[in-house]
C-alpha cells in the first residue's frame, strides 16, 4: 500500500539559508506521526511545503500516490489536507461559527448544511458556547481550538497540526490529545503534528521524526527516539567528561 503522504529528498532554501535539506519520510494512512526538533529545525517550512504555501526547490512530495509539487494551498486542501497555523490566523471580524462555516463550505456548498457540520465541529472543540462571539474575542487556547475546528471542518484525510498544544494547560492539553486520538481511531484520520509538548507527542504518536538543522536525524517509535543519542545531543547537548 502506498503511504498517504510521502516526501522524497525534499529541500528548500531561503536566500541561501538552507531551511530543509534532503528530507524523506512517509506517513502511513490512519497513523499519527509527530515531527519534533529544536526551534529553527525547519518543521514549519516542511509543513508549508506539504500544504502548498511554497514549492520545494527539489525533491518530491506526494499525497495519496500523486505528486503535489507546485499545487496551490487551496488545491491541496481540496485533495484532503487540512492544516492549522502555528501563529493562529482566525478571521478576527467573523463570529466563531462563521469561521468554521468557511472551512465546512469546502465540502458542502450549501451554507445551511455547512452550518450544521460546523456546529458539530465546535461541539468537538468545546467552543459551542462561544459560537456567536467574534473570533477576535477568544483567548489563545480557544483560538488554537478554533484553528483545529476550522481545519477539521474541511474534512481532511490528512490533518497537519502545527503546535496546537503550545500554551495550553496540562488538562486542556490532555483533552486535545483525547480528541486527536478519537478522530484518528473513529474517523480514521491521519495526523501529522509538529509539537514541543512531549507529553502529547508520547501519548499520540506511533512514529516520531526528529528534524535538526533541516535534516532528519532520527525516526522511529517514541520510546526509541527518546533514547537515541543523536536526539539527546541536539536537545540537551553532547555529554562531556569533566
Amino acid at each position, binding site marked *: 500500500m502506498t503511504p498517504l503522504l510521502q516526501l522524497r529528498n525534499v529541500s528548500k532554501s531561503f536566500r541561501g539559508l538552507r531551511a530543509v535539506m534532503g528530507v524523506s519520510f512517509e506517513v502511513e494512512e490512519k497513523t499519527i506521526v509527530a515531527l519534533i526538533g529544536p526551534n529553527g529545525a525547519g518543521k514549519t517550512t516542511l509543513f508549508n511545503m506539504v*500544504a502548498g*504555501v511554497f514549492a520545494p526547490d527539489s525533491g518530491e512530495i506526494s499525497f495519496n500516490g500523486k505528486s503535489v509539487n507546485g499545487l*496551490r*494551498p*487551496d*488545491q491541496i*486542501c*481540496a485533495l484532503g489536507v*487540512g*492544516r492549522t*497555523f502555528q501563529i493562529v*490566523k*482566525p*478571521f*478576527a*471580524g*467573523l463570529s466563531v461559527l*462563521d469561521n468554521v*462555516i*468557511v*472551512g465546512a*463550505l*469546502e465540502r458542502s*456548498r450549501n*451554507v445551511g448544511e455547512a452550518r450544521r457540520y460546523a456546529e458539530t465541529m465546535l461541539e468537538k472543540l468545546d467552543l459551542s458556547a462561544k459560537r456567536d462571539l467574534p473570533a477576535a474575542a477568544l483567548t489563545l487556547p480557544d483560538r488554537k481550538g478554533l484553528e483545529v475546528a*476550522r*481545519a477539521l*471542518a*474541511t474534512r481532511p484525510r490528512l490533518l497537519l497540526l502545527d503546535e496546537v498544544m503550545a500554551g495550553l494547560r496540562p488538562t486542556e492539553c490532555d483533552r486535545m490529545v483525547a480528541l486527536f486520538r478519537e478522530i484518528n481511531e473513529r474517523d480514521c484520520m491521519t495526523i501529522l503534528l509538529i509539537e514541543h509538548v512531549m507529553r502529547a507527542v508520547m501519548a499520540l504518536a506511533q512514529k516520531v521524526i526528529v528534524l535538526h538543522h533541516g535534516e532528519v536525524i532520527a525516526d522511529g517509535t517514541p520510546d526509541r527516539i527518546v533514547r537515541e543519542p543523536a536526539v539527546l545531543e541536539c536537545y540537551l547537548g553532547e555529554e562531556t567528561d569533566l
Partner: protein
Amino acid sequence: MNARATCWLAALSVVLLFLPAVANNYILSLATLILFFAYTGQAWNILMGFAGQLSLGHSLYLGAGGYAAAALYAHFDIGPWAGLWLAVALSVAFGALIGFLAFRYGVSGVYFALLTIAFAEFTRIGVDHLSWVGGSGGLFLKVAQRDEADILNLRGTPAMFYYVMLVLATGAFALCAWLLRTRPGYYWQAIRENEEAARALGIDTFRWKMLAMVISAALTAVAGVFIAFYYNNLFPEQIFHIGRSIEIILGPVIGGVGTLFGPIFGAAVLTLLAEGATELVTALGWQFPGLKQLIYGLVLLLVVVLLPNGLWSPLARKLKVAP
C-alpha cells in the same frame, strides 16, 4: 432581522414608494441623488467591504458604462436597455483586466488602490482625445422634456428617474444581502480577514476576488448608464475624475464599510448635509464655492476619528435593530 427592524424597513419602504406623490421636483432630485450614491456605494462595498480590496478607481466603471450606452444611443439610436449590456460588458472587461493583473501578480493593498486609480486616469485621458464620443468637449444626448415616462428610452419625468434608481438601489441591497448569506459572501469575508488562512481552507482566492471585482464593476456600469441618461451629458473630466471615485466611497466609509445598510445610510447623511448646507447658504445670499467638498471632508474627518467603523453599526445598536 428582528421585529423592530422590520417595522422600520416597512415604514421606510412606504415613504420611498409614495415620495413622488407628495414631493416636489427638487426633493425628488435630492432623493434620486441619495439613491444613486446608495447604489454605487453598495456596488463598491462588495469589492472593499466584503472582499477587502480597496478600489479608488470606480469612476472608471461608471464612465465606461455611461459612455458606452450614451454613445450607442447618440450614434446608432440604440436604446439604453440594449446599450446596457455593452456598458456592463465593457466595465466588466476593465474590471477583469485590472483584477487579473492585480490578483495574479500579487498586487494588493495600497498598490492595488494605485492600480485602480491609474486605470481610471488613463481612461479619462484616452476619452479626452476620443473624438467619436466628443473628446473633452463632452458627449450630449438630446434633451427631450417629456411629461410622460418613456421607460424604454429612459426619457421622462423626475419621478420616473426616481423610481428607476429606487429599483436599482433596492435590487442592489437584496443582492448584497443574498451574497452575504451564501458561499461567495463567506469566502469574500474570509479573504478580507486573512487571505493565507482562507487559502488553507481551500478557497481559490484569485477566483473569488475576480468575482467580487466583476460584480462590483458590472453594478457600477449600470449606474453609469443611469447618469448618462439622467443628466444627458458626459464629460471625461467629470465622470472619470478621481473625485467621482471618492464620492462613491464616501457613503460606505461614513455609513460603515462591509455592512449591508451602512452605504445607504452614509449616502443619505452625506447628501442631505451637503445639499442642505448649500441650500442654506444660497438662501442667506452668500457665495461659498466648494462648500460641499468642505462638508464631505469634515464629516469624513469626524467619522474616521470618532467612529472608524462608520455611523450605522452604533446607530443600529441604539435603535435596537441589530444585535
